[in-house]
Structures are given as structure tokens and as C-alpha cells.
């Protein structure tokens, strides 16, 4: 029995709170408390607080280290909110406060006065406790209902150490692969397209990505060497949903994107298995057959759709995922077209996963880092350059599953990208071989960690070929 994880909308409300508080503070620096612009910003802030208090009976916004937390839920910074997040964190740090807690939603006038006090608070050197000072100011203004929180101790985000989460992610992954396999098998057997289970699986993926995408992204290192299409489809779905989340797609949009990702290669059902699994280079005829899979995919989705529904996203992604942004690629088209955003996302995710998967089209797999480089080289021609940036920011310079040599002579498997964008090349890694060359079950470390001297404790020297050292990166992403 499965549970549909009811993702608490604290993420959404939290983002709103961060955004609205920031805008109100900025407005307060420009206008006085009676100004209409400021009052409108205050009104939005009040509404968010009311909703948050209604849904979660608490409204607390805290800044700790590089994180913003609302009601103890880490609010993920999306592309579109990145500058707001970083500016708000800096503002709080400069004020020397940890955040605010609202016991009840203020009225608009109170909220406008609150942001005026906070936004115009002069930074003072000195011995006075900034939290105490602000509390006093708010009390004087009759705004004692808003509590000023002490700065949180620097707190690193847990390093993938939540076994429950890992188990859930692994379960979702395995289940989705099974569902995909069943879907494709039933298509091969000529049965009608049934997508109920696929939809549920994609919904689970969306929920998990909302919760923590790094676990699922790590699991994309798992491969089915006998029939890579299943894991590949699921991996593309995971990458696409994760990338979609980065660029701010809504939950329902992510679901559509996930469906598009999962079904993008449905047309491979029509390609002979011996061609799909061939270990040598494809002949011209085989390659020609292979190039038909996008069209076959569309025909299958079209034939399997329910009356009254046009699965547009799925059809477009199936058709366009091998078309490059300059419209080269395949299938060859007669009329120019603008590739859909979802197709452009799926194209990047597809290339990345296909390139790093062993035995696909019989080219040697390359490391995720090399694949990322290769994709980067083709920007503007094959891929959307901005989406590539977003993809790199999702996976980091060293994507999860990369096996790297560290300057400490240790070998590590990259587990997750660091949440702080400036640490794009300093991910979290699990030490798997110590400096003496012994395989160990080492801990997960952050490569952004510094020694007392200020130098980084560990730095990636080189990306290694895992097979050479008999390292199977995938196993480190399993729950155990």
C-alpha cells in the first residue's frame, strides 16, 4: 500500500513569506508607513501570515547559516527567488537577528509599522544586543506581538543521513522503474496504454523532489544493464522534475513535465530489442530505425490517449527530445518550429542520462562530469544555454555518482550538490577509499568545509573512472 505524501504547503507559503517580507522591508526603506505601496506590500505579508497561521498554527521565519527556515521547514531557494533569499539572509545577518515569530497575524497598519521599524533600523556598532534593541523598539511601537529571534547557531544541513527519507526515495525509484517496465512490456504485447500507475508514480516523484531532490537524483546512478530504457526513462523523469522545480514550475506543471520525461522514449517499444541492446555500432539501417522512435512515441501516446484528453506535453516531448535548438537532430522536420520548454528540458536530461549510461548505443559511458562538459559544449546548438546553467546548478560541477580523487588522496563518490550556489564545485561526497587505498564506508563530507586555517579541507583533483577502481557509485545511494 502506498501513501501519497501530502507535501505540506509550507514550502509554498514559506516562499511567499520570504518574498513578501523582503518586498515589504524594501518598500519600508523607501516609503513611510502610510504610503499606499508600502501598505499594499504589508497587506500581502499579512495575508501570507494569516494563511500560514491557519494551515500550520505557527508563523516563524528564521535564518540559520545559509538556510531560511519557515516553521522549521527549509525553504528552498529557486532560481527566481535566489536574489531575494540571499538579500534577506544578508539583511538579517547585518541586523544581528535570527528571525521573527508571529503569534497572530497583525493588521495591515501594524504590519506596515513593523516593516518600517525593521527596515529602517540603523546598524549600530557597539555592545548593545541587537535582538534586545529591536525587541525594545517593537515594544515601544506597540508591536510586541512579533517576537524577534536570536541568531541560530550555524547549522549545516543534514548530509543525506535520514534513513527514512532514503528508504522512501529508493522505494519510489524502484517502484517507478517497475511501473515503467510494466508499461513498456504491455505496449510491446500490444495492450492498451494504461497510465494510472505511471501517473501515481510520477506524482510520488514530484512529491519527493519537493521534499528533497538530492536523494532521487542520486538514485539515478542505478542502472538496469539488461534493459536500460526503463531506468533511463525514470532517470529522465527525475532529472526533468528536479530541473523544473529549480526553474520554478508549479507542482502540477512538474507532474506534466514528469509524465513527459517518463514517456519520452515510449517509441523505443517499436525498435527491435537487438537494436536497442546492440553492443556494436549501429548500421545505417539500424540507426535509421532508431531515429524513428520519437515519431513512434507520439503515435503510441496518441493511440493510447483517452477521448477528451490531448496529452500535449507528453506528445511534444516524445517528438522533440532529439531535436536540437537549431532544429537539427531528428526526426527531420519540414516546417520550422519552436521547441517547447518541456522538450528542451527533457532533451538535456535525456542526453545526460544516456551519455552516462553504460551500453547505450554502445558508446562507452562517460563520467557525469564529462557528460556535463559535453552538454555544455553544445549549448546554443543543441541545448538551451540557460537550461544548461540551471542543470549545472542542479547537479553541480561534479554530479552525484561521480567518483573523484581528492587532494587528500582519498577517493570519494559525489552524493549531492551543496545547497549554496557558490559551492557549485564543492559538493557533498562520501569517502569510499581512504588515503592508504583501502575501501572504507566513510562518512559523507562537505567539500565546502574549511580547516581552521581557512583552506578547504578537501578539494577535487580529478574525476576518476569508477570501473578502473571497481567502485560502483550506485550502491552508495541505496538505503542499505
Amino acid at each position, binding site marked *: 500500500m502506498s501513501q501519497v505524501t501530502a507535501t505540506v504547503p509550507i514550502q509554498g507559503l514559506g516562499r511567499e513569506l520570504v518574498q513578501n517580507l523582503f518586498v515589504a522591508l524594501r518598500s519600508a526603506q523607501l516609503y513611510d508607513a502610510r504610503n499606499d505601496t508600502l501598505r499594499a506590500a504589508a497587506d500581502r505579508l499579512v495575508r501570507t501570515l494569516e494563511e500560514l497561521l491557519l494551515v500550520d498554527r505557527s508563523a516563524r521565519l528564521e535564518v540559520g547559516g545559509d538556510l531560511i527556515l519557515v516553521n522549521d521547514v527549509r525553504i528552498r531557494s529557486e532560481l527566481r527567488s535566489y536574489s531575494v533569499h540571499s538579500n534577506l539572509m544578508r539583511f538579517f545577518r547585518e541586523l544581528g537577528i535570527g528571525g521573527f515569530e508571529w503569534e497572530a497575524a497583525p493588521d495591515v497598519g501594524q504590519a506596515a509599522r513593523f516593516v518600517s521599524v525593521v527596515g529602517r533600523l540603523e546598524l549600530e556598532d557597539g555592545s548593545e544586543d541587537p535582538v534586545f534593541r529591536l525587541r525594545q523598539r517593537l515594544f515601544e511601537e506597540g508591536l510586541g506581538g512579533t517576537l524577534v529571534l536570536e541568531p541560530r547557531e550555524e547549522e549545516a544541513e543534514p548530509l543525506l543521513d535520514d534513513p527514512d527519507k532514503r528508504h522512501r526515495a529508493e522505494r519510489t525509484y524502484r517502484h517507478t*522503474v517497475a511501473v515503467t517496465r510494466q508499461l513498456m512490456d504491455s505496449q510491446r504485447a500490444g495492450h492498451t496504454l494504461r497510465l494510472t500507475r505511471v501517473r501515481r508514480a510520477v506524482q510520488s516523484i514530484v512529491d519527493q523532489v519537493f521534499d528533497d531532490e538530492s536523494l532521487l537524483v542520486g538514485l539515478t546512478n542505478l542502472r538496469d544493464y539488461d534493459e536500460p530504457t526503463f531506468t533511463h526513462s525514470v532517470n529522465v523523469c527525475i532529472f526533468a522534475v528536479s530541473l523544473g522545480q529549480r526553474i520554478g514550475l508549479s507542482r502540477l506543471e512538474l507532474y506534466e513535465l514528469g509524465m513527459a520525461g517518463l514517456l519520452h522514449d515510449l517509441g523505443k517499444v517499436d525498435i527491435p530489442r537487438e537494436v536497442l541492446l546492440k553492443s556494436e555500432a549501429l548500421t545505417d539501417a539500424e540507426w535509421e530505425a532508431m531515429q524513428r522512435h520519437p515519431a513512434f512515441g507520439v503515435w503510441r501516446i496518441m493511440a493510447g490517449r483517452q477521448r477528451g484528453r490531448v496529452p500535449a506535453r507528453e506528445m511534444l516531448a516524445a517528438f522533440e527530445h532529439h531535436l536540437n535548438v537549431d532544429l537539427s537532430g531528428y526526426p527531420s522536420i519540414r516546417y520550422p518550429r519552436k521547441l517547447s*520548454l518541456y522538450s528542451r528540458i527533457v532533451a538535456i536530461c535525456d542526453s545526460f542520462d544516456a551519455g552516462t549510461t553504460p551500453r547505450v548505443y554502445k558508446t562507452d559511458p562517460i563520467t557525469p562530469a564529462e557528460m556535463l562538459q559535453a552538454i555544455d559544449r553544445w549549448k546554443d546548438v543543441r541545448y538551451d544555454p540557460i537550461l544548461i546553467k540551471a542543470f549545472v546548478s542542479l547537479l553541480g560541477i561534479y554530479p552525484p555518482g561521480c567518483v573523484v580523487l581528492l587532494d587528500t588522496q582519498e577517493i570519494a563518490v559525489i552524493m549531492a550538490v551543496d545547497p549554496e550556489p557558490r559551492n557549485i564545485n564543492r559538493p557533498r561526497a562520501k569517502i569510499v577509499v581512504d588515503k592508504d587505498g583501502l575501501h572504507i564506508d566513510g562518512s559523507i563530507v562537505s567539500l565546502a568545509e574549511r580547516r581552521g586555517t581557512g583552506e578547504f579541507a578537501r578539494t577535487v583533483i580529478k574525476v576518476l573512472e569508477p570501473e578502473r577502481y571497481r567502485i560502483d557509485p550506485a550502491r552508495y545511494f541505496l538505503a542499505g
Partner: protein
Amino acid sequence: MSPSQSPTTAVTATELVQELVRVFKVRRLYGTGHPQRVEIESVAARRLAALLAEEGSVELEIQETMLLAGGEVVYEQPPGPESLAHILFREGLRQIVFHDGLTADELGGFLDEMTLASQQRLEEDFDLVARLWEKRFVHLHYFFVEALSDEDWVPPAEERLNESERRELHVQLSEEDRSALERPPTVLLADPTLYFLDEEDMAELQGGLDDEKGRALFTEVLTCVRELLLDPIVDDISPAVEMIEEIHAEYLGDQIYRRVVEIQEIFAPYLESGRAAQSARDAFTRMRDSALDETTLIRLGKRLLSGDLDEVEASRFVLAFGSGRLRAVLRGLPDIKRVCQFPAMVQALGGIAGSDEAGLRQALASEDPQEAVAAAFLIGLTADSRHLEALGETLSSDNAEVRRETLLALKGFGGGRALEFVSRGVNDGDPSVRLYALRHLVSHRYAPALARVTDRLERREADRSLTEQRLLYEAYGALGGADVVDDLVSRFRRRRGLFRKRDPEEAACVLIALGATASPAARQVVEEASGDRHPLVARVAGQVLQGWGTVEATA
């Protein structure tokens, strides 16, 4: 959260279910906004909130006909549309948990879906579980059956290293890898900072997202299908054809005419390519027919006339589907005269009519008066001389409205032939047609029609209106000119009846006729009449004189 936490007392669960059932029943009976429904829902939301605040959460196990809490049956109802248990069970749900904090919106959203599921079998691909997921509940969790739960994929074991074997391995870095330790770190991507998304990137991305949301997905899909049809790799193209027809029907139903036209434009190259399958051709014929059916054209006309539809969009639609099918347009489009107040529509209809000479003639001869009237109107609008003879023939139509419109159309033409046809209208059975004809003949002073007018004038017609009488006289004067002045003068002076009285109305009409002759001889008579004792005669004489440019006024 595990499915079996915190056993709930059966009493609380029973109360909760009773509330749910009550609201569920009310929803099945009353539509949104019904006062009774609103009242019961609001009471239920309050009661549920109180129950959950006290209990924390309530877990219900779902069986085919029962709901259970803590192992006790709290609800039982045999399968049917009223059975909450059965609906949930049928849709694959096996447990549902209500948490403290459940909002009225959440309750409403849940019951919306339940009501829908009770009223119709939900689509297999978009079942209750999928629909509930979209609601994104916070205080309501549910568990469902996964048919494949025991068949999850297992990563191939042979690819995974044996743990003890792995531990025994001693890693010797290759020479190449070892040497890397002595060099600066490999730079993988030239400058990682290039991969930070800056404000500009984010703005572009945002623009891309907005653009994506603004795209017409159906259109994109259709252009994709066009590519597939032009290079077919499957024998059975029916899925594509069915989908195109469905999209066409949806756009047409939603009255998004520009999109309906777009579908035709998208597939025109395919249909013209010679590769189009017969099934596709048939489908497009059906689509074209449906675009011109009466209901569609009436709706289009109404929206256009009410200002709710852009004339360019409407004209594109009419042009796209009406070309070569003029008669269908004329049959269906209501109130063509008002429709043709829009220049774009005139252009479209004129274009269609201009390229379908035979269709226009057939329409003119149609037994459907709306079609014939519309055809006559269009001919008049375009004044296409190719249709002059046909118009002349239409004057013999049985339908007065058709004849009237034909006469109006003829007025758009110059030349003797057209006037000859118009003159036939003098003898039409319909008074309004006769009036139109007379006015036109007067304004053109078409002398050859004099005989007809005279003949008509001489007839004694009891039902002739004063207006017609006046017009007949005016035409008589205008067409006869100086030649009929004497006759008119004698008519003016004629006395009739026992008391040898003059008919003042006829005298007034004769004065108008004298004025229409524009003859100096007539003027004298009119001037005299301006001092007539009968006020009507005197007033008309004055008006006629004014028409001559005379400033003299008579009392």
C-alpha cells in the same frame, strides 16, 4: 506516518463519518450555493474541526462496504453511488486519515471529488487518487493499493560488488591518476561562476516560462502531427485523425474561431500534398461541414453583432470555410445585412461570392428565402454585372422579401438593363416592392418605364396607399416630363362626383407630379395652386415650389 498510528475511538470516528455522510448526501441533492447545502457544510466543517482538535487525528480503514476505526465498524453501506466506503474502495483507497486543522476548503475539495466519483465512473487514467493528489491536502492523508507493490524493480545484483571482496581490494591509483595529485586540480568547466544564474538569466527564464504558458499547446501538437502525417511510419493514422477532429470540435464548441481556422491552415499542405489518406480527407470534409452548420454560423453571427467577436477573426473563419461553399454560408449566417456592416465581413463574403458564380446563382434561385435574400444582397453589394440577368429572373420569385431584396440589389447597378428590370417592379404584387421600384425610377428618370407607370396610374386600386399614389404621380411626372403636363393640369382641375368636388389628396399628388416634370409650363399651375383655398393643396404647392428653388411662400 504509518497507516496504523494512534488508534481512534470509534465514537469520534462515527461522529466524523456521520458528518461526512450528511454533507455527501446534501451535495448529491443540492447544487453549489444552495442555502441548505451551505448551511450543512458550514456546520459540518465546524463540527469536524472540533472533533479533530480534540482527537488530533482520525484514521479510517476502508473496506468494500464498511469504514472501520480501531477495528470497529463505524459506517456500513452496500455498494452503490451513496456508499462512501464503496466509492473509496473501488478507487483503490484503503485508509484515510483526517488531521487536526482540516480546513473547510480541504473538506470541500475532498467531497467535490467524492461527489464526482459517485456520479460518474472516473476516467481510468485520471482516477480519484490522481485527482486527490492535485488537491494537495495538508490535513488529509490517504493510502491506496498499489497493484505492483510486490514487484518493485531490484537493481541487478551481479553489477554490485561483493562487500568482503571490495574491502579486500587495495586501490592502486594508476600512474596517470597519481600524477594528477601533483598538478593543480583539473578544471572541468572553464569557470564555475559562469554557471551561476544571474538576474538576467532568471529574467530570461521567467520570460521563457511565461512564453510557454502562453503557447497554444494544441497548435503545437497539431504541427507535430502534421510532420507525422507527411512522413507516415504507421499504417493506421486513425489516432491522429480522431485527435484532430476532437481538437477541432473543442475549439468550435468553445468558439475560438481563429484556432479552428488554424487547424485548416496547418493541415492544408498535407491535404494538398497528394499524400493525404482518404480517411483524413473525409475527416476534414466533416470538419468543414461542422464549421458551417447552422448552429455554428448563428452563434458566430450573434457574437459578431453583439461586439463580442472581432470582425477580422469572424471574417477569417467565414473565408476559410466558406470558400467554395457559399450556399452553406448564406443559409446559415443570420442577418447578413447587419453582418455586412463590418468591412472585413464584406470583403470575406464578397471574396467568396466572387469566386463562386454558380453557387451564387443557385443561392439566388433557392427556395430558402434566407439564402436567396442573402444572395441578392451580396450581388447588390458587389454589383457584379455577371449576375444581372439572374437578378432579373429572381424578380419573379414567389417570395416578396426575395423580390424586394432583388430590387434593392438592382438599384446598385447602373444602365438601362438594370432599370428595365426595376421597372418591372412597378407591377409587383407587393406594395413595398412597387414603392422601391417607383422611387428608383423617379431618381433615374427612366422614361421607358412611363408606359408601365401610366398603366398602373390608371388602374383603380382600392387598397392603394397615398404614398404609392403620390409616388406613381411623381414617377409619371418625372418620366413623362413636359409631355404630360397638359394631362396633369387637366387632372389637377378635374372635378368629380355629384358636387363636382376636387379630391385634395389627388390634387396634391398631381402637384408633386407637376413639380417632377421640371417644366416651366407646370410651374405656373403650381404657383397658382399655392394660393389654393385647401390647405393641403396650398402646402404641397409651396413645397413643390421650394423644390424648384422659389422663395415665394404662400400663406
